[in-house]
């Protein structure tokens, strides 16, 4: 587990950072520094093994189904990178401790930084390409957080988003690429993939896979044309830029190319793609860097350029090129990190990073200045510094490379890149550090504390040491390059300052001369550059994103208009289309069932239905008429149920119809009585077409079904109804017994409806709704709210209807009826009373607690079902028996009846609750006092007397 721990320790440090910051900035920095150091020490314990030629591996299963595993290994490349990450990381931690101001939340900074470090170590040490992917994306995320660290800066936010989008997007390509690679290789373990290079390169999917992997690598390493995000990431605090955007994260793409080099490199495709991308990046980025005024931007583009160089080297695909790449990675990390930190020092001390406002700093801050100059010289590739060595190797390799039959293309461009490289390094040296000291700085710069220049000094020491004694880097380069190249032997090379008069030497000299000319001609070149049009990558990126967003908004606005009408058209049309397609996919034949002859009343009923339906479509804005027509349709439907042997359904439909009508009337009273017709003929047409298609479809389906026979499970229900369920009304036995669970759900639906209605209307007497009710204008109303005849008829009908309800309830098990219908009848009877005498009067006389009824109904039904548990039987198991009572005779009692009682209670409760709640709301809209019930005609008094006004509100 020790390799995994290398990556995990910084993560622990990240978690500790926000905690330890409470004990002070030093404690915090020390803690995270200790974490990094511990990881570094742990890592280096593997060095002997690695340098002994071993590959140390660890494997813990994670998601074997896909091939994802916690696999880590240390080989030369991994060790090299991890050391780089941790070593430079340590320096950055020290540097940042002094760089960050007191106002900056340091705990968060270190947390992000170590999170990043952990992710980066994961990338370097993963032995599984999917695990590598995980860490890869984590580096993008943590860099997003780091770039956006100064959240008040818009550049920070935008830069962070851009970096995330580009590198995260590249990560998505990499997901695809890695999955393909793993599949092609038959393994996701890197150490195994590296053994299977030949098979991979021969695979038909090699090229698409390669493109996806390169997409990931190029975005991360800011290769042309994805180079634009990196400069904007410079909004981050300088330690971040130094760490992520020079030394580590941006090298992840290069690392990936190196890591997979044995598996992917060496093909034509590889060479044809990778080399030119690197080459172009090298040249273009260097050219841009030369003209940048922001010190960090200059360094950033120079980084891009150097990354391009490494990519180009890896693209060439020869072992020699790989060695050069490895050597340059090492060298670049040292001098570039030193330069970034120096830039931070400049920024910190001089208060600006603008090259035009800087100059002569060497005199003002001699230590830092000297260090920076050395690093810049290394970047330019001047002899006796490490940058010179690897650049020579690069030029040497380039000199021997022919691209697409053009032998001079690669060397020429490489030289050009070197020219520019010298130029921008010179610009850095001459325009910032050399020359006369300026005195127009915001505050006078001087050397910072040793904590800030110390890390720079350490790096520059390396720069110089390697530059003078190249073999110092020998073992590292050799071991690393061996890991990159894979199983093969290392090519012959020597790390030396002098190789003789090679083409590279001439190219190098040309570069220095050319660079010198360029810096001399800077003012003229800068004018020309300023005048020329050049693509502004950030603006283009922003434009692309904004266009994407705008297009998305247009699409969304066109789709999600908020119009239910449109949504419904889409939905119904989809249903119709799928229905038709499904039906016509085949498998239909004529039915063999003989049709029933049509009877006169059926035809008349059919006609009535047609007329009512047509009328409702035409006259739907007249809402009262709509309700009347709907009642007609309900009547016909009830009769149809009756005609076709479904008395229970008819009874239900008849009662439901009445309740629904009253409910709709109640609502209509508070809503507009007239709707607006559809003004758009087009929409009418579309609706009609969709409606017609649905109608035809449904008619065809039902006709098809009715004209063919089947055998259904209902035969069992018919046979078992009496012996098994104790009832002769099979429909009722199905409802309360065979499928009692449906009924249990159904009464719960009713109960919920009531609760929801209650909750909805509970607030109707407050806020906007109450104001609207108050403002309602009633039409001319009858003075007589409770007509005499209605009241008196109700006095008789109510008890009789309740009697009928009892009757319907009790007979339900054997004959049409049952709890639901009985409940509706009883509810209707009570509604009749309320309708006749008024709500206030009737409610004052008998409190009907609808809530309790509903709760009790559900509980009674449920407990009846649960009663079966006592006998070890499943929920809703029923039982019945016959009893004998004197006088009454034999009668049957079934548990199903208790269940039906629950149904009954719930139905009554629901109907009452719903109607009474609406009625309660209506009261608010009354303009005139409603006479108190039971009837308004005054019979017993002699002279006429006014209706009571005071008692109307509270009852």
């Amino acid at each position, binding site marked *: 587990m020790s390799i995994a721990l290398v990556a995990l320790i910084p993560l622990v440090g990240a978690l500790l950072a926000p905690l330890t910051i409470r004990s002070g900035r030093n404690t915090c920095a020390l803690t995270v520094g200790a974490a990094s150091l511990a990881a570094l020490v742990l890592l280096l314990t593997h060095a002997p093994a690695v340098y002994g030629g071993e590959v140390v591996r660890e494997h813990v299963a*994670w998601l074997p*189904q*896909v091939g994802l595993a916690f696999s880590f290994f240390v080989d030369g490349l991994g060790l090299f990178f991890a050391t780089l990450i941790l070593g430079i990381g340590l320096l950055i931690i020290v540097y940042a401790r002094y760089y960050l101001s007191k106002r900056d939340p340091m705990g968060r900074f270190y947390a992000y930084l170590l999170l990043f470090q952990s992710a980066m170590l994961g990338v370097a040490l993963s032995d599984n390409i*999917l695990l590598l992917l*995980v860490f890869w*994306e984590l580096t993008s995320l943590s860099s997003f957080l780091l770039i956006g660290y100064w*959240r*008040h800066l818009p550049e920070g936010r935008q830069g962070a*988003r851009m970096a995330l989008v580009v590198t*995260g997007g590249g990560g*998505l390509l990499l*997901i*695809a690429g890695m*999955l393909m690679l793993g599949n092609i290789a038959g393994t996701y373990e890197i150490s195994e993939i590296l053994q299977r290079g030949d098979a991979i390169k021969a695979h038909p999917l090699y090229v698409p896979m390669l493109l996806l992997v390169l997409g990931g690598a190029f975005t991360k390493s800011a290769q042309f044309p994805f180079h634009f995000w990196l400069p904007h990431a410079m909004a981050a605090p300088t330690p971040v830029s130094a760490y992520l955007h020079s030394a580590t994260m941006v090298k992840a793409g290069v690392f990936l190319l190196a890591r997979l080099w044995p598996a992917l490199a060496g093909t034509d495709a590889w060479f044809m793609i990778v080399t030119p991308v690197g080459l172009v990046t090298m040249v273009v980025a260097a050219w841009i860097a030369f003209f940048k005024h922001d010190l960090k931007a200059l360094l950033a583009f120079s980084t891009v350029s150097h990354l391009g160089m490494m990519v180009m080297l890896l693209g060439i695909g020869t072992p020699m090129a790989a060695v050069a790449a490895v050597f340059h990675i090492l060298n670049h990390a040292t001098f570039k990190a030193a330069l970034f930190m120096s830039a931070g020092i400049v920024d910190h001390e001089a208060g600006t990073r603008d090259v035009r406002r800087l100059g002569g700093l060497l005199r003002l801050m001699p230590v830092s200045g000297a260090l920076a100059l050395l690093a810049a010289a290394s970047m330019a590739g001047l002899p006796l510094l490490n940058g010179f060595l690897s650049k020579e190797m690069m030029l040497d390799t380039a000199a021997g490379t022919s691209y697409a039959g053009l032998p001079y293309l690669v060397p020429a461009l490489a030289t050009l890149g070197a020219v520019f490289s010298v130029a921008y390094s010179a610009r850095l040296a001459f325009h910032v550090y050399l020359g006369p000291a300026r005195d127009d700085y915001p505050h006078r710069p001087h050397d910072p504390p040793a904590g800030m220049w110390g890390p720079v000094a350490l790096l520059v020491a390396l720069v110089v040491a390697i530059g003078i004694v190249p073999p110092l880097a020998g073992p590292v380069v050799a071991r690393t390059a061996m890991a990159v190249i894979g199983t093969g032997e290392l090519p012959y090379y020597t790390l030396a300052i002098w190789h003789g008069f090679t083409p590279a030497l001439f190219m190098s000299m040309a570069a220095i001369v050319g660079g010198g000319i360029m810096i001399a001609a800077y003012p003229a070149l800068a004018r020309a550059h300023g005048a020329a049009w050049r693509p502004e990558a950030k603006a283009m990126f922003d434009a692309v994103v904004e266009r*994407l967003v705008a297009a*998305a*908004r247009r*699409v969304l606005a066109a789709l*999600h208009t908020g119009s*239910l009408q449109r*949504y*419904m058209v*889409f*939905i*119904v049309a*989809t*249903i119709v289309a*799928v*229905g038709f397609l499904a*039906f016509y*996919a085949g*498998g*239909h*034949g*004529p039915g063999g069932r003989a049709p029933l002859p049509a009877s006169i009343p059926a035809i008349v009923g059919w006609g009535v239905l047609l007329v009512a339906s047509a009328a409702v479509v035409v006259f739907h804005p007249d809402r009262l008429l709509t309700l009347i027509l709907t009642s007609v349709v309900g009547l016909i439907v009830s009769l149809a149920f009756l005609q076709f042997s479904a008395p229970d359904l008819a009874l239900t439909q008849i009662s439901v119809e009445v309740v629904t009508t009253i409910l709709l009337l109640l609502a209509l009273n508070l809503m507009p009585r007239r709707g607006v017709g559809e003004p758009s003929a087009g929409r009418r047409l579309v609706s009609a077409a969709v409606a017609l298609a649905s109608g035809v479809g449904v008619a065809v*389906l039902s006709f098809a*079904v009715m004209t*063919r026979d*089947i055998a*259904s*499970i*209902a035969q069992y229900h018919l046979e078992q109804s009496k012996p098994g369920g104790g009832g002769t009304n099979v429909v009722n036995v199905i409802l309360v*017994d065979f*499928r*009692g*669970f*449906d009924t249990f*759900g*159904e009464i719960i639906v009713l109960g*919920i409806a009531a609760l*929801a209605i209650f*909750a*909805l209307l509970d607030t109707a007497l407050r806020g906007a709704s109450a104001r609207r009710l108050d403002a309602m204008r009633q039409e001319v109303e009858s003075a007589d709210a409770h007509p005499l005849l209605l009241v008196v008829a109700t006095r008789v009908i109510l008890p009789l209807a309740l009697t009928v309800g009892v009757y319907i309830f009790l007979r339900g098990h054997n004959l049409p009826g049952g709890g639901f219908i009985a409940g509706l009848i009883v509810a209707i009877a009570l509604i009749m009373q309320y309708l006749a005498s008024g709500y206030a009067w009737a409610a004052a006389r008998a409190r009907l607690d609808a*809530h309790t009824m509903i*709760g009790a109904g559900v*509980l009674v039904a*449920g407990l009846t079902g649960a009663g079966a*548990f006592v006998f070890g039987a*499943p*929920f809703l198991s029923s039982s019945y028996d016959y009893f004998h009572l004197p006088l009454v005779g034999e009668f049957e009692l079934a548990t199903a009846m208790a269940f039906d009682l629950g149904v009954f209670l719930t139905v009554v409760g629901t109907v009452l609750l719903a109607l009474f709640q609406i009625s309660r709301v209506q009261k608010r809209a009354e303009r005139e006092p409603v006479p108190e019930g039971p009837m308004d005609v005054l019979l017993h008094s002699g002279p006429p007397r006014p209706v009571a006004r005071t008692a109307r509100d509270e009852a």
Partner: protein
Amino acid sequence: MSHWIVAPIILPAFTAAFLVMALRHDLARQRIVSFGATALLLAVAVGLFALAGDGAVRPYLLGNWPAPFGIVLVLDRLSALMLLLTAFLALAVLVYACEGWDAKGRHFHPLFQFQLMGLCGAFLTGDAFNLFVFFEVMLIASYGLMLHGGGAPRLKAGFQYVAINLVGSTLFLFAVGLIYATTGTLNMADIALKAPQVAAGDVALLRTGALLLLLVFALKAALVPLHWWLPTTYAAAPAPVAALFAIMTKVGAYSIIRIHAMVFGPEAGELANAAEPWIVPAALLTLAVGAIGVVATRRLLDLVAFAAVWSMGSLLVAVGLFGPRGLTAALYYTVHSTIATAGLFLLADMVMRHRGQLADRLSSAAPVAQAALVSGLFFLAAIAMAGLPPLSGFIGKLLILDAAREAPSAAWVWSLVLATSLVVIIGFSRAGSVLFWKTEAAGAGPLPAGSAAPGPAAAGAPRWPASAVLAVAVLIGGTGALTLFAGPATATFEATAAQVLDVRGYVAAVLGPEAAAQLGGAPGVALGR
């Protein structure tokens, strides 16, 4: 027959009825009872999950009537998994809701319990019509919850939600009718048994029924072009309700798996995998629409809602692949998407709570209360949702891409899944940077036209109670756990997928081995009863 199988349905039902009867004026006690019942539900769900872990399919014969004549509940790995997920989510959401949302209207707790009952019933039932009933229980409770607290936008959105779902319910009946008309049965196992035996001339009717049913489920699952209700509804719903609704779309996905991958799955004769050609294209459209919405919206709740659409697209892509690997990925993604969506909705609520008139508008304002905590959690939830490592969305994405590898639509699936991921990342990063980074001094934020007063200063805003934070943290921790234990979790889902696809085993358990023998081939290895 273990009676515990019916417990997830009747426990919430009794709780709700009790709350309505006895405690409807006492919110404090309602909370206690509701929490206790939900915790108990979670315990039962854990128990049932463990029980189902032996691979047996356990029918529960309600009313003691033999299948297929009565209604059966069926506990198998799939139903147990969904129960567990539901109970886990419910508990977290309930804890959050008790922080104050439940006091904004009447009957929150009874409706919540009824909602749980409907969900559990839908997951447990082995009967097509009973599934309809539980859909209705679930839906009507969801209507009540969605409208909880009122307000004009919510009422208008609620009407759309209700109306569209009523169309779905109607369609459900048409579909079940056709299935009954051709197979003569309602029991799912029996339908699976009868479907291959349907007369040649009746196949079109049965196919129509099956595909109309698919549309019903697709409507619930917000598959484009039936997704219209989701963004409006989720954005308008109270936060805990929107969070709970994360499981509602999964009911649609579950039903597709249950009915179209199992009942009308590979063994369904003429109808074998009839739904297959339809789902993936629609799911890819869903991905696109979801991603477009994420990047286009100007409000956080809409963004999360469209992210939910997008994640349903991903999930349904996996469902639409149908094979064992597709289903495995779908199940993983189901769990992930439920938890992540719910967490995001709760976080969105935490974000907007103290922003005053700005609410969830994506424009800068004073920093939210406990910004570090809230933004940290939001960052994690967004990572999970967008499918970035290291949280479960990434694993889910890997599984889906891996499962799609061999499919004819592989190129489409891969490109759309990845491309829309990028768009979603863009959307989330824009939103997050505006909400948490582009903050302004308290009270100085620009306000939309017409708003009267600036939002309250974060400094004065009350801190979030630990319970609410814990609820969110548990959800996000859930995605973390799902990532860390992706291997064992996926192994479970593989077993679940295998069980789903073993329709013979299911039929043998529900209807007996003789019945399963009619399906041809060797009867499955179900252990039954």
